[in-house]
């Protein structure tokens, strides 16, 4: 029933988990295992540790799990596996139970809480243990998991992330997998699937990943108990295809002693050892807390809640060398350099980033300009020398379009708009013509924004390079690109946009900077 590669790896994980439980110094285990459903090989102990810290926070903090495989028609139980766990989430042994343990009825999955109670009674009666979670897989889910695992070892690059996300989407979208009690991350993904109306999360991840410039980074997830390092490198220029890979290891595995060193020294050693250009350090608990906040979001997405998450991220960013570190130390944090930049009347002190005012400014502008109910259409283009045409540049270079629908300060829908819904045959497709066309089908569209991939690529590339060298003049070059209509345009033009177009981004940036940066510590 199970893919042999998946099964052998899973059994190896269980065996190692069981050993780790009884060892005095489990970190000395040298065995390598694969993170389930990914091609990433890591130390068995590190995987044990990740389950130990993540499972109770994200899934369930109680012991014992029951996996049930059922027929696609929801009429028959095909297999039942009991995982007894001494620690929540640490799968260390399993027991195949009789399929007759309980009779499945079609409506059981509609009242999954009652079904859970019935199973609980049966397990207590037959095995004398209480379970905390049930995971139900339809047979089709197992087939998809098996297909996913077939090629998993040969996928050694970044593409496993969108692939895995695609699998999760398919399982949840088609109700092939259930879990009870339902964890927040499950609801979060389900909520996203509904919100995105057919737009695949995996495609979004790939789109943004492709915008990134070549990178060689490592991240130290720091804690006193067990720090670990994530290494993510791209090896070829991105134009020649994605060739990124991800590795996870403990500092001990790299021979790095973490005691008695302060964080910048640790990062320097990691940088040399793993040959990354940039090494970050984040606190494990901070990263987990942020993810938990994100998974708690409810759908339709309240913009007020998004504002809070935005605030927390900005608060984290302003706490450089307190909550996070990066090596090489960005020039922008150098006092002399900041002084020089200030001579150009840019007061860019990121340690005083106004984490509370920036989200308010952004969301206030959104509501004031577009209203409390609005639809905003974003069109992306990809201009190159061959397809550029001054009159019909949007139609000729169209990549994709997305309509964001906001209802009473909540993001209620995100709809992918097809090319034929956007363009009229016998008209010049300016943004106002496009707005009228889309409004016919989807209701009044407040604004249409057109942005080119090249500009996005430049912006992301420029700002990610800031982390090492801050180049004021290269920033000005990007600012100049914003003035070009075919890279960025909007209809109707809101005041902020009009200001940027008429007086330039430099002038706008100078004006908005005192709002973005605090004068005092509050």
């Amino acid at each position, binding site marked *: 029933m199970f893919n042999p590669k998946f099964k052998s790896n899973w059994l190896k994980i269980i065996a190692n988990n069981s050993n780790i439980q009884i060892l005095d110094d489990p970190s000395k285990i040298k065995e390598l295992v694969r993170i389930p459903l990914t091609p990433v090989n890591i130390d068995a102990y590190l995987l044990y540790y990740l389950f130990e810290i993540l499972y109770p926070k994200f899934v369930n903090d109680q012991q014992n799990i029951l996996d049930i495989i059922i027929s696609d028609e929801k009429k028959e139980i095909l297999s039942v596996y009991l995982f007894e766990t001494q620690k929540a989430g640490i799968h260390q042994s399993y027991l195949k139970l009789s399929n007759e343990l309980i009779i499945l009825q079609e409506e059981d999955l509609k009242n999954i809480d009652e079904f859970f109670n019935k199973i609980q009674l049966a397990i207590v009666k037959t095995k004398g243990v209480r379970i905390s979670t049930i995971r139900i897989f339809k047979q089709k889910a197992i087939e998809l998991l098996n297909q996913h695992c077939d090629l998993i070892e040969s996928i050694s690059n970044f593409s496993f992330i969108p692939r895995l996300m695609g699998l999760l989407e398919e399982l949840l979208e088609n109700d092939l997998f259930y879990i009870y009690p339902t964890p927040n991350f499950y609801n979060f993904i389900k909520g996203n699937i509904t919100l995105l109306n057919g737009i695949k999360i995996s495609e979004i991840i790939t789109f943004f990943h492709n915008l990134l410039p070549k990178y060689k980074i490592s991240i130290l997830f720091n804690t006193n108990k067990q720090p670990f390092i994530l290494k993510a490198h791209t090896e070829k220029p991105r134009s020649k295809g994605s060739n990124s890979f991800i590795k996870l290891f403990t500092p001990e595995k790299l021979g790095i002693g973490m005691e008695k060193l302060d964080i910048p020294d640790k990062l320097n050693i990691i940088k040399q050892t793993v040959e990354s250009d940039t090494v970050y350090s984040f606190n494990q608990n901070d990263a987990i807390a942020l993810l938990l906040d994100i998974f708690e979001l409810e759908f339709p997405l309240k913009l007020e809640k998004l504002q809070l998450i935005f605030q927390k991220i900005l608060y984290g960013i302003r706490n450089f060398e307190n909550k996070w570190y990066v090596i090489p130390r960005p020039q922008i944090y150098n006092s002399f350099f900041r002084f020089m930049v200030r001579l150009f009347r840019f007061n860019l002190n990121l340690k005083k980033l*106004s984490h509370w*005012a920036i989200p*308010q*400014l952004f969301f*206030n502008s959104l*509501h*004031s*300009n*577009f*209203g*409390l*109910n*609005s639809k905003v259409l974003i069109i992306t283009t990809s201009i190159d020398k061959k397809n550029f045409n001054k009159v019909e540049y949007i139609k000729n270079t169209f990549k994709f379009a997305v309509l964001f629908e906001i*209802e*009473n*300060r909540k993001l209620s829908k995100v709809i992918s708009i097809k090319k034929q819904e956007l363009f009229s045959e016998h008209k010049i497709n300016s943004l*106002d013509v496009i*707005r*009228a066309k889309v*409004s016919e089908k989807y*209701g*009044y569209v*407040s*604004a249409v924004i057109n942005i080119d991939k090249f500009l996005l690529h430049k912006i992301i590339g420029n700002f990610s390079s800031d982390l090492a060298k801050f180049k004021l003049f290269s920033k000005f070059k990007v600012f100049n690109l914003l003035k070009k209509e075919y890279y960025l345009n909007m*209809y*109707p*033009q*809101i*005041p*902020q946009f*009009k*200001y940027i177009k*008429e007086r330039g981004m430099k002038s706008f940036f100078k*004006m*908005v900077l*005192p*709002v973005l940066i605090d*004068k005092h510590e*509050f």
Partner: protein
Amino acid sequence: MEPSKSKVTSVVISKEASPKECVFRGIEKLGGITNYIRDGDQVFIKFNLTLPQGFPVNTNMDTLEAIIDTCHKAGAKKIYVGSYPLKGLTIKLISDLIGLNSYFLKIGAELVFLDYSNYYFLKDIKKKDLKIIKTQNFSQINVNDEKFEVHKIILDSDKFISVNQVNVDPIFKLRLSILNSYSLSINKSQLNVLKSKNLKDLIQNVIDVFTVRKPDLIINDLFYILEGAGPYIYKDSKLKKTGLMVIGNDAVAVDTITSTLLSYNVDQNLLLREARNRNLGIYDISKIQVIGENLNEIKINIQECVSRLEDIILPNFSIKTGNISLGDFEQAYHFLNLLKTHMIKDVKYISKTSFLIGDNPPVPENLSNVIIFGDSAIKSTKLKKNVKILKLPGNPPNIFDCIDLLIKYYRKSNVPSLYLFQNLLKLYRNKKINEKLKIWGGL
């Protein structure tokens, strides 16, 4: 259709899944659009157009589109849409900022630049030309010894439809269709009324404008209601979705039913009371035949605007009020809400401020910064000579001027958010256009 003469009128409470459906089904229940619009009719639709903001400051465009579509289906020859915006703003400015003109043309209607602001940008147009245009296109209507200038398109149209987005309002509690009519015309007495402390004069004035041309078909759109702070979008503004619209051919009856739906005592609605006294429509619920949803089964409670300025909570601001004129109250309400929305950061930078308004406001405890709002407060407030005072003159003061003075007083480095807001406003506060507005007169 002469609703005031008939003894019974019908009002539809329409509830559907979308605003467009609400319009279509609602008009159908009222007997169909052909009862109102005839083949070849010229139709003028009065909608809400106050500020260059999105919904619900202005009418829901989906509602408006549904009505335009319905009129076309009934054979309307020409459909005009229009309204006057807030004082100091031009229709051209709002149309450009939210892309209205081209949008209306595409859905088969024409936006009327009632203020002729589409001419202001023409280089060769002169004061004399504007005056000629004005004389040719406006009629003067006398109501209760007041002269109202009304565009001939409104008066000459065969049918007049009022489409009103229901929002909370600081003076009248709710913006209902009779109040929507107030921005149908311009007149100098509107300004004088706001200077007085007498709400009765304002009510009189609103009703006078309403009688200039009573609508043939009225839609109170409460599919979404703006509550908390309104009728514009502020920090405390929220939408309440009801999925309802109230439609009829008697504005008084439609407003009466709308007020009842929103749990308001109709007798306490000052505009409706005045309309009743002047016998301008049917106000007696027993004489209104309600079609569609059951009025007794729906009770909607909404959060009103604050009725006291002291209730607008602004950090570091202490608000002291004396005897306030309507204009001062309304402007201060909007000014303080504007600061609350756009000055989030600044209020933490500035030290404690006392905000005085009205005749003889109480002496503030805190005298480190004192803002005196409006001529009457400036005249009647006597403080020690060494107190730092910012005077915001005017009866009532102009909000844009107040922002300029506030930035000058606190210095731009202390009010960065307001400075940003001011600079964005400057893009549209064109001196030349303001001069033209003055030439045009009354705006």
